[in-house]
């Protein structure tokens, strides 16, 4: 067993002259909910792509679920789940078909799949619409379904890229209940969001500015050390000093 789910050391990615991610080092513990904040263009997406094995770092070290991002990208992909607001489900497939499709992609056996499918359908409460194309579902349901699918294969770490954009506050909280639940089961959650109040739901929060991690602490700790009342104020204080992302 490992206790550290994600570990980076001086992780850097350059695109030509441009350093998108600049020497970031941090550790995320198993079962932790880790908030990854940053302004548009601060380098969040690039960092996330390196951690999910989609992009090779230029230099530095990183391990995800105990696997090295340079040599074991394929093993990383098998042990993580990923959900983003932009890419999630196939709109023209039904809820059931989506689940089966992703189950197949992640190598869940034929015998197991029907039962897993029922579990997901029940947990999201989609019994009555399981045979309808996903397109016709309200956004909140779609997002909950996408989330359930991302943890279908029992990943060790799940990456959530702005999972709650545009959903109503009740659904947003149901979403966070699920996040708490899987964290309780020992799955590590790595989440980005533009809702600053959501940062306060996380166990720890990092704030990226111009490719560097400028702050990393518990929400409470951050508020104390920056003498602010909310993470939003901390964020604005830090991100205001940003030099790039201005164009």
């Amino acid at each position, binding site marked *: 067993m490992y206790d550290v789910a994600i570990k980076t050391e001086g992780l850097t990615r350059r695109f030509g002259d441009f350093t998108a991610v600049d020497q970031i080092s941090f550790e995320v513990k198993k079962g932790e909910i880790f908030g990854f904040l940053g302004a548009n263009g601060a380098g969040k997406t690039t960092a996330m792509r390196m951690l999910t094995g989609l992009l090779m770092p230029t230099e530095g070290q990183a391990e995800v679920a105990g696997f090295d991002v340079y040599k074991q990208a394929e093993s990383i992909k098998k042990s993580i789940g990923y959900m983003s607001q932009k890419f999630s489900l196939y709109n023209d497939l039904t809820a059931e078909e989506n689940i089966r499709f992703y189950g197949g992609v992640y190598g869940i056996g034929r015998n197991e799949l029907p039962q897993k499918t029922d579990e997901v359908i029940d947990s999201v409460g989609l019994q009555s619409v399981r045979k309808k194309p996903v397109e016709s579902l309200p956004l909140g349901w779609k997002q909950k379904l996408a989330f359930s699918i991302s943890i279908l294969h029992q990943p060790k770490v799940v990456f959530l890229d702005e999972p709650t954009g545009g959903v109503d506050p009740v659904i947003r909280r149901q979403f966070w209940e699920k996040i708490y639940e899987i964290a309780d089961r020992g799955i590590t959650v790595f989440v980005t969001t533009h809702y600053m109040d959501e940062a306060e739901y996380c166990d720890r929060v990092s704030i990226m500015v111009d490719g560097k991690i400028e702050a990393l602490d518990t929400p409470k700790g951050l508020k104390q050390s920056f003498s602010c009342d909310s993470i939003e104020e901390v964020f604005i204080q830090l991100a205001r000093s940003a030099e790039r992302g*201005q164009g």
Partner: protein
Amino acid sequence: MKTIVHISSVSKNFGKVEALKNISFEVKEGELFGLIGPDGAGKTTLFRIINTLLLPDEGTATVLDHDVEKDYKTIRPLLGYMPGHFSLYQDLTVEENLQFFASVFGTTLEENYELVAPIYSQLEPFKNRLAGALSGGMKQKLALSCALIHKPELLLLDEPTTGVDAVSRKEFWDMLQSLKKEGITIVVSTPYMDEANLCDRVALIQEGEIMQIDEPQRIVNSFEKPLLGVKSPQTYKLLRALQQYKWTDSIHPFGEYMHYTDKRGKPNLVSLKTYLFDQGISDVQIKPVQPNIEDAFMALMHNGLEE
């Protein structure tokens, strides 16, 4: 004070989907009016009825005393409109975009420079950059400049801050405040509840219906139940325990502290603590908290479901 937008019993269906159900409200001159609600609530449909692009199935809508159906030609030039997910012309530069929208509305950048100057001045160093290469926040500023270029009397902004980071969002709202001072009436929609506080009045929309229209503070004040914040390092266990607690009226995760209301109105702190202790939850902290607009919204949604 003059009424700028007058919506009266408006309904709109798309096939079987009821996008708007019997909606009525007014926007006064110089007001910053917010339409707050999640995706799919009907905000965009409402905007398209105000800007005359859609006709209501039932009810009437007037803008600046002109009927949206009959007098659409009169209304359109008076509007500044920024559609949701509006992305400008990616292959034109910042300056060309602005000049284009100026010319389309029969004016020039120079003529109305004063109005857009506070916003556009931030963009001017990048005026020769293609709009496609701008960051999210910058794009919003440019889009706002484009909507303002012909000095509209009513500004309609459909989710201008969606997907934009907190800093850019704050700057954007600062701009709206200063435009308000210029006397421009603004109707803006957003899925971010916290932005409701920045409006003069808001309409909370859910599934095509307006749940409440009021000043944000008064909506918050309408939340009357005593609210407790409960916290423990065992977040999920605490949540489960409180969901099963017999006196729980509502329990919502709210960051560090969960927000709890009691069926009895006034909660019994001692028995609550004892219950949580019996459930094996350690380090429980309980304190009274002030409700915010989200608490109010969720309470309204909850009531709506029970009706």
